[in-house]
């Protein structure tokens, strides 16, 4: 009797704690959601009941803010980064995983070590370099920078997925009559697909949210969404309602991608290959 009661109390307590923790994390997001639909006047009041407006969204897409162009830049830059990073990283990861390369460990550590250099340290050299070769304020330039940021991460992550594919499976395919390229196309890629999709989405998110380099290396044509947010500072203070609307435009694709990741994080893709 008492045992059951204690359990019920404990379970309710757990639920309360979880809800509280979720609330703490969600409050800013809820606040942004509300603010995005409020007028400039309402924004500073913690009113939950107000007359919602879509005006903020049309304002941010109009001049002078022109968020549409930034959205376009962000999309192109992030998509191009992923489209280049994943195939190249897959090739590198396969080689690291399957071939005996001289100095493979050292190379892998070096690749990772690039991530330890603080971005602030290298952003200026990048600026000078890009200025000299005319890549300042271009989407191509941003794609290159983002590639440098995501590649190490992508190589390591995809290598992990390829390591998980039993070598026996590949050897079986070779004895069955496949060339190395056929093995990669028919066996490795399909088996690593969930991993490739997951890595691709992570890279997309990193490129989408990249702030520092975009801030320094762009000023007009290639400005991306995170930088665009900085536009909403006026002399009368931060334009929170516009800032929130833009914030939602940045967040929504991330929500969608997070959902996709969840679906693709299926386990047991390699189950059944070997005993």
């Amino acid at each position, binding site marked *: 009797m008492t045992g059951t009661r204690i359990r019920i109390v404990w379970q309710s307590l757990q639920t309360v704690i979880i809800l509280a923790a979720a609330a703490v994390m969600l409050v800013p997001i809820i606040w942004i959601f509300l603010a995005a639909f409020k007028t400039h006047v309402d924004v500073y009041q913690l009113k939950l009941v107000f007359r919602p407006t879509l005006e903020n969204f049309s304002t941010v897409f109009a001049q002078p803010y022109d968020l549409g162009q930034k959205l376009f830049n962000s999309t192109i830059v992030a998509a191009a980064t992923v489209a280049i990073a994943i195939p190249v990283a897959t090739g590198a990861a396969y080689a690291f995983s399957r071939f005996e390369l001289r100095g493979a460990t050292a190379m892998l550590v070096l690749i990772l070590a690039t991530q330890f250099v603080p971005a602030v340290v290298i952003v200026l050299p990048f600026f000078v370099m890009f200025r000299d070769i005319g890549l300042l304020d271009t989407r191509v330039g941003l794609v290159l920078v983002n590639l440098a940021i995501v590649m190490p991460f992508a190589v390591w992550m995809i290598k992990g997925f390829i390591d998980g594919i039993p070598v026996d499976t590949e050897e079986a395919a070779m004895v069955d009559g496949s060339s190395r390229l056929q093995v990669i196309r028919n*066996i490795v890629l399909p088996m690593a697909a969930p991993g490739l999709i997951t890595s691709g989405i992570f890279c997309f998110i990193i490129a989408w949210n990249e702030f520092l380099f975009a801030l320094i290396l762009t000023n007009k044509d290639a400005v991306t969404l995170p930088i665009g947010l900085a536009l909403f500072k006026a002399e009368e203070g931060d334009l929170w309602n516009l800032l929130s609307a833009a914030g939602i435009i940045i967040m929504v694709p991330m929500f969608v991608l997070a959902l996709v990741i969840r679906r693709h994080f299926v386990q047991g893709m390699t189950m*059944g290959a*070997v005993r």
Partner: protein
Amino acid sequence: MAGVRLKNVTKRWGSFVGVDNQSLEIKDREFLVLLGPSGCGKTTTMRMIAGLEEPTEGEIWIGDRMVNDDLPKDRNVAMVFQNYGLYPHMTVFENIAYPLRVRRAAKAEITPRVQAAAAKVELAEFLSRRPRELSGGQRQRVALARAIVRTPLVFLMDEPLSNLDAKLRVSMRAELKHLSHELQITTIYVTHDQIEAMTLADRVGVMEHGRIQQLGTPDQIYNDPENIFVAGFIGSPAMNLLQGNISNGGFVTGGGRPIADASLPDQNAAVMGIRPEDISVTAADDGTTQATVYATENTGESVVVTAQLGQQRLTCKGDRYLKVAINDRIGLSINSEHTYFFDAETGKRIRRG
């Protein structure tokens, strides 16, 4: 159809020798079993024939072609891997069809051949499943079906039954034997299960330390071992190997009177081999020698008695009605017609006349 020849094949990793200067000729349509303890180089030999491992030295021939420089795909062998190596993202049908597809077999030909192969291993009803939805034995049979769906020059089977339960193993063994008879393709089969080796093989190669110690029919391997290793490795319970010496046409151990005839020249350090089933347990006063019971094991079908004879122990197989207890005095009657003598130093068999 093709035989396989290894000419002085050696595989080394650094200074470690996996396969040691091995020469071997497998005839066309022969079923050869490689048998040996773990780590003796069976899988390595097999992988070199398949082209998955490069020999450090020596030549490998399939049919009349030296295949050292051929890729696995160009050797036209089919292999059943020790751990299956199935394609988890494909259905059973696609798994079995893969060797045909990748070799660009005619589309119309694929389905009937896959179905025929699946039927041979009784998998016909599982064709649309994926490997993870199958039991271990069923996965094993997918691997087999994938090998037999085409007609390769050689089958390589690496412990293909090792993961099955005892009962399934026996029925699959029969299935394999039937298949090999029906398909008539040269087969190299690796196992460390002796019964599998004895029942399936045309010839057995007993391996140790990367080298074949004896190559012969199952009958020769069991009844006419060339050396101490083969004698002790084949048979369960293992053959008794007693240290002693040969003098005046008898084998003497522990300084007592001879326990068996040995019509051989005198030899100081000799080993006598006798199988447990060739020793019978008698009353204490009968038999050729006397001993004490060290342990008894009832296997149901027989009683295995371990007897202490001086410093050495001997196992003998008595019938299932034998009743002896530990520390009982018993007599042992050794059948001198079934003894084997070996040189204790070289391990080589000492043959009569």
